[in-house]
């Protein structure tokens, strides 16, 4: 029982924090965080106990399962509020609670001057609750509820500065894009229910795979269910073609971008596909779609990140691209690598976003990198921590994302997905390039900061820099701790039992890593391309060599020459391949037309037909009276016509 109690507390504390802050937060003034932040710190501590127990084998391979109460008792349709904690959940708990806690602490400083801070902390607590519910849920229904709740929180927080029209629009965009995915997700859940009659994860996956083996369930049905559920993941994790909302979501406060739109919520799709691995692995077609969408998003987003000038947007596209990697990894059957990359990227991207927030704060709410530069002298801690994050993101050993990215690429190659590997290598080079373009434009070279602001630029307060330092530690060391030795690291020991069945379904088996053979070559190739991308970026945008003490100067004229050489490509990247314009045309303009058409249809055709027939019947010359009573008669006529149609229908149906 004590463990069940602890898991319950992990959920109860954030929601209690939300309730309290929402009720009394306004009166707390500048100390609006006084409930919310301690609640999450305690949640983190409790979660760590749960994580420790899980990873040290305290719950066995199947994990801890328990039912809190019966949510829906409706005959044979029962849904329980049941929770499951296995090693996969535990890894997620580490990321969610740790980044969550640090973001909470960071927000104390970042939101100190915002009059709506109590609202901010209340929403943030609500988000933590929803996200934890999402990873702890033991059945589809509970997961779906949490899925919608995180979407709601994301909507509220993106639109936090709602008087800004761009924020309000971005919030709506995110919500709508998510809803599109959720329709598929909901249909997928219905399909699971009709096919196997249970929504419990363990039972449902078991019965689906037994049904397929026994021939009661067709293979196409499995593929259909998997793809419908995948729609939800595409929406939540912002994969092509629903990726458009994530960059705009950067309108929210930066801590939100770090927490929700980089480290946790956007990973929900990846988590879900990993959780549903017994289902997805039954359908090679679905796996192929997952891999294809993933790797396409990876290269698409990376190509856009090359030319963006808003510091947060570059990071947003980078997040998209890394999420694409994770889906590609899931699609090729490299589940452990996907979760590993998610963990590494959760910490690294959290760090980079918080760092960018610190920069934005430092230069007085400026986000355009063309108006930064040379900041490393003024903001040494922010610079050093972001450098660690960027190196990690670029895939330079021995930092965290190097290990995870390398594992993805290696597995893709070895599992026979050569095309995924090839595209992945290109993306790796692009990633290193745009990360160091960002570093160069922000921290090195001559300063382009507004002269009025320039003298006031200084390092951010301690509550912001301490979380940066704390996040830089996992961003630097996580890979060494979890990933070594290659192919047999801790992360593999934790997670492989969970994906055993999927590996079996896919016919993959775990081969020992040949560091002097194929694996060594693959590692060298990926490090080489990353270094190449990084080197080009350093040449073009400048760098400060800490040990030599001198600088590589930026070369804007060579950048200009390069972009002038391929103007079309540059424009395509800069305009984000015109996806926003396409959506505007398709949904806003055409969709608006359709809605208007239907309204017109009801008014003109439906009412019009009725009125029109009335006109004919009544004849002319009684206009005045028709205004008084005509419409009622026309309505009555409409009802009479409908009645006749219905009577005809009944007669035909019963006479056949």
């Amino acid at each position, binding site marked *: 029982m004590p463990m069940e109690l602890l898991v319950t507390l992990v959920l109860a504390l954030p929601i209690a924090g939300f309730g309290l802050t929402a009720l009394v937060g306004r009166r707390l003034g500048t100390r609006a965080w006084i409930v919310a932040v301690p609640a999450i710190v305690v949640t983190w501590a409790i979660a760590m106990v749960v994580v420790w127990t899980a990873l040290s084998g305290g719950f066995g391979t199947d994990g801890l399962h328990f039912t809190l109460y019966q949510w829906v*008792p409706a*005959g044979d349709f029962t849904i329980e509020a049941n929770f499951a904690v296995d090693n996969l959940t535990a890894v997620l708990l580490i990321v969610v609670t740790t980044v969550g806690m640090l973001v909470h602490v960071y927000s104390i400083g970042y939101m100190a001057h915002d009059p709506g801070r109590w609202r901010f902390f209340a929403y943030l607590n609500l988000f933590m609750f929803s996200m934890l519910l999402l990873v702890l849920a033991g059945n589809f229904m509970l997961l779906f509820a949490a899925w919608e709740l995180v979407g709601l929180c994301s909507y509220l927080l993106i639109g936090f500065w*709602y*008087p800004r029209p761009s924020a309000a629009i971005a919030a709506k965009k995110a919500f709508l894009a998510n809803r599109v995915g959720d329709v598929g997700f909901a249909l997928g859940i*219905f399909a699971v229910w009709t096919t196997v009659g249970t929504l419990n994860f363990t039972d449902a996956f078991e019965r689906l795979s037994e049904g397929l083996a026994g021939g009661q369930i067709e293979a196409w049905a499995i593929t259909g269910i998997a793809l419908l559920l995948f729609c939800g993941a595409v929406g939540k994790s912002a994969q092509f073609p629903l990726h458009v909302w994530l960059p705009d979501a950067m309108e929210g406060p930066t801590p939100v971008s770090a927490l929700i739109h980089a480290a946790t919520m956007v990973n929900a799709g990846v988590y879900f596909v990993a959780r549903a691995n017994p289902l997805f692995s039954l359908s090679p077609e679905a796996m192929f779609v997952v891999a294809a969408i993933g790797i396409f998003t990876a290269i698409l987003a990376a190509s856009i990140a090359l030319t963006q000038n808003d510091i947060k947007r570059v990071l947003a596209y980078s997040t998209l691209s890394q999420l694409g990697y994770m889906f590609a990894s899931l699609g090729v059957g490299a589940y452990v690598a996907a979760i590993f990359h998610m963990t590494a990227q959760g910490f690294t991207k959290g760090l980079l976003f918080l760092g960018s927030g610190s920069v934005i704060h430092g230069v007085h709410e400026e986000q355009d990198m063309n108006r930064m530069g040379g900041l490393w002298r003024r903001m040494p801690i922010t610079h050093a921590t972001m450098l660690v994050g960027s190196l990690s993101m670029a895939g330079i050993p021995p930092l965290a994302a190097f290990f995870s990215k390398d594992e993805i690429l290696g597995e893709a190659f070895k599992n026979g997905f050569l095309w995924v590997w090839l595209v992945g290598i290109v993306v790796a080079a692009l990633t290193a390039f745009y990360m160091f373009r960002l570093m160069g434009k922000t921290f090195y070279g001559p300063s382009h900061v507004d002269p009025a602001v320039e003298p006031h630029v200084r390092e951010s307060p301690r509550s912001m820099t301490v979380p940066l330092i704390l996040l830089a530690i996992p961003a630097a060391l996580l890979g060494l701790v979890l990933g070594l030795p290659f192919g047999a690291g801790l992360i593999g020991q934790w997670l492989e039992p969970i994906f055993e069945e999927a590996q079996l379904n896919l016919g993959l088996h775990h081969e020992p890593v040949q560091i002097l053979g194929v694996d060594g070559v693959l590692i060298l190739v990926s490090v080489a391309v990353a270094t190449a991308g990084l080197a080009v970026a350093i040449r073009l945008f400048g760098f400060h060599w800490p040990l030599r003490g001198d600088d590589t100067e930026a070369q804007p004229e060579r950048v200009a020459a390069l972009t002038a050489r391929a103007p079309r490509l540059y424009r395509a990247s800069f305009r984000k391949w015109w996806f926003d314009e396409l959506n505007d045309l398709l949904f806003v303009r055409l969709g608006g037309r359709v809605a208007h058409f239907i309204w017109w249809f009801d008014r003109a055709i439906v009412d019009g037909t009725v009125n029109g027939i009335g006109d004919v019947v009544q004849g002319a010359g009684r206009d005045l009276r028709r205004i008084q009573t005509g419409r009622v008669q026309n309505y009555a006529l*409409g009802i009479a016509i409908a009645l006749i149609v*219905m009577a005809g229908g*009944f007669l035909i149906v019963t006479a056949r």
Partner: protein
Amino acid sequence: MTVAELLAIAPLVFVIGLAIALVVVDMIRPHDDRLIGIVAVVGLVVGLEVVLLANGDGTGVFGGAYVRDRLTFFLDLVFLAIALLTILFAPDYLRPRGLPMAEFAATLLFAISGAMLIGGARDLLVLFLGLELLVLPGYMLAGYAKRDGLSTEGAIKYFLLGSFSSAIFLFGLAFTWGYTGSTRVADVAVALQGVTGPGLSAGLAIGLALLTSGVAFKIAAVPFHYWTPDAYQGSPTPVTGYLSVGPKVAAFALILRLFVEALAPLKADWVDAIVILAAITMTLGNLVALTQDNIKRMLAYSSIAHTGYMLVGLAAFAGAPAGSPAAQAGLEGLLFYAAAYTFMNLGAFAVVTALQGRTGVTSQIATFAGLGRRAPLAGVLMTLFLLSLTGIPPTAGFFAKAYVILAAVQAGGWVSVLAVVAVLNAAAAAFYYLRVVVWMYMREAPDDAQPLTDSWPMKAGLAAAALGTVLFGLVPGVIIPTAQAAAQALLP
């Protein structure tokens, strides 16, 4: 009459008595709205107690023409809740406009007694009697602001078309009687055993068409919905709230007694009509609601859409094989939906009423501008009700939709297509409900914005509606067993 029989009709008699008592009180102390409010509210709370006391053990009264079973029990609770909520938030609208409270409350309770009569009717004529007792006071209420042209216009339209449809319905009853030789629900069901399918006599087919059209009007299903927007927009706001819930739930009670009990043997013949009605009702209701700028008109079209969702539950019953779990789940879903809809829709109307507490506030959606800032509590509650109407967990509305949709999926065949239509509709509906939320939180309030009223009955009404909306979503277990028992009472 035995004690058991007296107890069985006690709730009905009590409500009629309460209505009369209100008229008497008004005669003794004219224009004392506060006293009327207290008598009505206390009376209704006692009424709920009487219903709980009378329970529902299946006692038949008047030779079996009226029955108090678990369904009657469930419906009586819903009807009394409707009356109570409406009476709690009505005074804030009526008082500033000089509309008398006593007649309003008495008329409303007479209508509710009609609804309660339908809920327990097991005879076709009693059903019709209850229906007329329900709708006649409804016409009066719609025209309650008699100096307001729009109110009168809406009432007359409602009255004329309502009478028309009542006639159609009665004609359908006559056909049914003609072919079965009985007006007793049980006897009709027995007489119809085995006559279903191809070769069903033309007379019965026409009877079914007439009955379906008649009830489709009462629940405002497309294409019998024409009266709804005009009547809803013209009526005083509390009346609109009542009209969007009371007569609708009562008409669904009529459907349960007539279609599910008496005409169940023919369900294979009428299921197609219900599937089609449900699909077009949801779709048209939602699509037209998208373009409305008047909150009452928008809620009118949205209530049409909710009729569609409730019909999905009925379709699940009719489409599933007799005795299957899906058939029962469909009915349970329908009943649960009715209860959830009562609270969330009346809650939304209560907020609209609070906004219109000062005369001169229009029903334009723009009156919601900045509400989240100027009246945070009302803003939060309105958001809750709208989220529930949208169907976002963990509110009652989510659960209600999930219930009927899952039942439809389980029923299989054509009915499961309805589930897809319902899901798509729910997604589309999010747009116009959330539009109000956008107005409340993302627009500045105009400088001349009127403050909201906050009398204690209004607060109590809002609290009750919010409690139901949250409770049914979070712990649906509090009501599902009652709904299950009610559904079981209908099935042989």
